[in-house]
């Protein structure tokens, strides 16, 4: 079974802090994605990556950056956390040539105070 893990289930950070959210997948997937989920807004794509050291902006990249140094790991970075970044963050991965379904991690609920 595909497994996607995220470093924390719950995280509380202060405004202005630099925050790292880590995601690891164990199925050798090329594609990895970061979403945020907010009530009434559904899932919105922040960044995605098709390969190591490759990244592309999604729909809402402002205030975020990413890093993909290894194929299995995709990190989301909040350079200076703000209260409007309080949200549920979901990581996903898939294989580009196989079924289009994405495999999701359990999510990290981030609160910025």
């Amino acid at each position: 079974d595909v497994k996607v893990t995220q470093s924390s289930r719950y995280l509380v950070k202060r405004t202005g802090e630099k925050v790292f959210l880590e995601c690891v997948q164990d199925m050798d997937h090329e594609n990895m994605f970061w979403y945020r989920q907010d009530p009434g807004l559904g899932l919105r794509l922040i960044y995605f990556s098709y390969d190591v050291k490759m990244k592309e902006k999604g729909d809402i990249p402002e205030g975020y950056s990413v890093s993909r140094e290894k194929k299995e790991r995709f990190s989301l970075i909040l350079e200076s956390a703000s209260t409007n970044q309080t949200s549920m963050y979901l990581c996903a991965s898939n294989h580009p040539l196989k079924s289009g379904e994405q495999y999701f991690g359990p999510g990290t609920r981030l609160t910025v105070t």
Partner: protein
Amino acid sequence: SQQGEEDPQALSIQEGENATMNCSYKTSINNLQWYRQNSGRGLVHLILIRSNEREKHSGRLRVTLDTSKKSSSLLITASRAADTASYFCATSGTGANSKLTFGKGITLSVRP
């Protein structure tokens, strides 16, 4: 930008009844997928239907796709309390990547 829009936003039914959820989208797609999310958890893939398919079954799930109307429906038959969750449709565009665009979701409550 949101592509999939689900309808209704919330649905409450009795155990044993069927649940029908609808999704509409705006642009051409490669495939349409349905996901389930239990409270506070990640999403789980349920079923994928390609643009050249009209209907697909998986256990108690039936998905239809009408590309002329740009709409899909998910039917869950003989619902169970464990089906209580949020359901999302997601569309994959016709471009070279497998990026998905998700709707806002439907909250399904199945009363025991």
